[in-house]
């Protein structure tokens, strides 16, 4: 059989239709497509894809099961190393991880590993009736701070090894960024709930509304009988640009904008949480969060959505598929542009005018790419006199976050770096005995899968420590 040089395309909702609903954009492979795509895997000897995966899923093995139409077998292979396959199949940047290493990718398009992973996980969730087996207890208690990707992964691995695990979540629902950050149309919340349920069946306990550092401290978690603590408290406060007008009404951080829509369900009519809808929206930034915010604004009813990014399309850090989807949906990319000032309404005659203080536009300046910086990225330089105004009603700033201060400020002896990130060794161990950490709380804003990798590393270190 001749090898298809291209990946099987992912069926998606029509861009014109999906721009107005919150249903999932990518619809997933059919059974036939999945089996056909699996045939493209060469099952090569050196398995470079496995090294490309932060949690080292045995990719060729699960694809080999798929080739034989043993979908449950494929799931069991993935499940050995990944606690969240239905999530990763959707949100991992495969093009820079497993798929970037694929041998087939040297000459052709790589195998659609992420799409296959998603198919296998969705099939399992829809068809498998076998309840996950709870491991026999080893008598050791561990507390996990935060129920985002790193915490869930760490919890899953520890529970499978027989630990008694309690996950503490500050918000009212488990899932962390998977719930408050990533929108429904990219990761349906029912999928996150299903993954959390699976962990509950493995014996993991979840305590919501527990703000560690406030409700309970790390020291109290130890007093409560926990022998180790994993801190996966995630990204913290949003960064702002420090330009005039950032406190005008209608200026959101991406965290706030997405939290209002995703966690608080402001996109639904019957929800109590307000959000500014409609009009023209400018999103500042070029990462996945910026794409999520722009596409959310569109679905909330914006007539026009701009993305303002200071470098070019080539440097855009977002996952490729998200950028393509955003373009198809009609998001207007204002590249090589930098915000200078956010403009607001002010009625000089009437200080009580209800419109006073609301955003009316953003002044931006054109940029050129200059010399590469220390990281090799070409530094953008403003073109003098090139400023112009984009009319808008809402601005969403998606330029990253700084770590949350709550745990650092209430945990004696926990060392952090200059950026506030918790310092860990290669096993995820912090400067405090038996306190481990991982994910954005350590690295600053990064990806779901790298956080999962960190949760996994720490779980392994904890398992090894107590096996001694």
């Amino acid at each position: 059989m001749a090898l298809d040089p291209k990946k099987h395309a992912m069926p998606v909702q029509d861009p014109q239709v999906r721009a107005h609903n919150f249903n999932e954009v990518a619809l997933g492979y059919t059974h036939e497509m999945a089996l056909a795509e699996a045939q493209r895997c060469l099952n090569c000897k050196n398995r470079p894809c496995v090294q490309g995966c932060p949690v080292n899923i045995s990719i060729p093995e699960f694809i080999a099961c798929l080739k034989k139409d043993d979908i449950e077998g494929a799931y069991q292979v993935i499940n050995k190393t990944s606690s969240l396959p239905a999530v990763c199949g959707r949100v991992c940047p495969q093009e820079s991880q497993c798929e970037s290493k694929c041998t087939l990718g040297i000459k052709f398009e790589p195998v659609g590993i992420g799409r296959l992973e998603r198919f296998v996980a969705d099939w399992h969730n829809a068809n498998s009736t076998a309840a996950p087996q709870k491991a026999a207890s080893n008598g050791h208690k561990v507390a996990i701070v935060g129920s985002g990707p790193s915490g869930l992964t760490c919890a899953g691995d520890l529970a499978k090894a027989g630990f008694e695990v309690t996950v503490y979540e500050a918000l009212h629902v488990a899932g962390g960024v998977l719930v408050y950050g990533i929108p429904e149309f990219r990761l349906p919340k029912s999928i996150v709930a299903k993954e959390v349920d699976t962990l509950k069946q493995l014996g993991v306990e979840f305590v919501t509304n527990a703000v560690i550092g406030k409700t309970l401290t790390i020291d109290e978690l130890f007093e409560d009988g926990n022998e180790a603590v994993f801190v996966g408290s995630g990204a913290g406060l949003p960064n702002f640009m420090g330009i005039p007008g950032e406190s005008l009404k209608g200026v959101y951080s991406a965290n706030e904008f997405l939290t209002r829509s995703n966690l608080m369900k402001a996109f639904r009519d019957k929800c109590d949480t307000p959000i500014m809808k409609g009009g023209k929206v400018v999103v500042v930034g070029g990462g996945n969060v910026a794409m999520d915010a722009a596409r959310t604004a569109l679905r909330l009813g914006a007539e026009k959505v701009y993305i303002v990014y200071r470098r070019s399309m080539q440097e855009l850090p977002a996952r490729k598929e998200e950028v393509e989807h955003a373009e198809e949906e009609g998001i207007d990319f204002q590249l090589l542009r930098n915000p200078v000032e956010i403009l607001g309404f002010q009625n000089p005659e009437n200080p009580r005018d209800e419109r006073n203080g609301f955003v009316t536009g953003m002044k931006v300046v054109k940029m050129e790419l200059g010399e590469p910086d220390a990281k090799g990225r070409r530094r953008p330089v403003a073109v003098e006199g090139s400023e112009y105004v984009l009319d808008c009603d809402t601005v969403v700033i998606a330029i990253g976050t700084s770590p949350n201060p709550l745990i650092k400020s209430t945990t004696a002896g926990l060392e952090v770096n200059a950026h506030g990130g918790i310092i860990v060794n290669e096993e995820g161990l912090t400067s405090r005995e038996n306190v481990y950490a991982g994910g954005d709380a350590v690295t600053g804003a990064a990806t779901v899968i790298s956080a999962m990798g960190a949760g996994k590393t720490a779980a392994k270190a904890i398992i090894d420590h107590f096996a001694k």
Partner: protein
Amino acid sequence: MYKILCKKELNPTVTMMEIEAPLVANKAKAGQFIILRVDEEGERIPLTIAGANKETGGVKIIFQIVGATTEKLNHKKEGEYIQDFAGPLGKPTEIEGKKSVCIVGGGVGCAIALPVAQAFKEQGAEVTSIIGFRSKDLLILEDEFRAASSELIVMSDDGSYGRHGNVTVPLKEMLDAGKHFDEIITIGPVIMMKFVTLTAKPYNVPVTVSMNPIMIDGTGMCGGCRLTLNVDGKKVTKFACVDGPDFNGYEVDFDEAMSRGRMYFPFERHAHEETCNLFKQA
């Protein structure tokens, strides 16, 4: 779910509730706040803690009925449950080392000012309290303030109770008369806190204000509660949820905070009317 241990109407628009939340009660200190959700579809709102009892695990909140959420909360009865209750959040009010303080409370803000006054009294400070209300019907916690203060002045905007006028009037009189305060702590509407700060400025008395901006998570994640401080001539962004809610009054940009606080007024008005109509139909 969190049980409502006790409910009491303090005036027609202000209600006190005690919520069973032992972990919060264990830690709560004056000046801190909680975030609650009434039901599964509800929004997260911050309310400052008005008192806590470690023995019963009860945490006292006092709220004014201003929007859909507080309307729904007010319809809950003693013995019923609310969906979520998280805290204690924010930094406690700094009370150590102060021997003479003036507490200036306005409206429902007095509910939060009271535990601060009590905490100062407990550590032996001399507490002077000025509390202000629009009119007599809206007066709350007068007896409690009297017990916590060595001197209490009650003001009403319309003259229907106590002295006629704003809280800044007696404050200025006392400062003019040479009364010494280590600190003035003011809690209430932003406009009142702004004018208390302006009143105190010529006398160089430190002023602490308790800010109550719009919040969602309340844990240092969304950034909605940001405010601008002017620190030594430089503008600095701070977050009320983790850096506050108490701030140095001389540094806060009150006008910006007031403007931001009005962001959802049209929405809130609409949502409140709709909720009221729902309850009428039921």
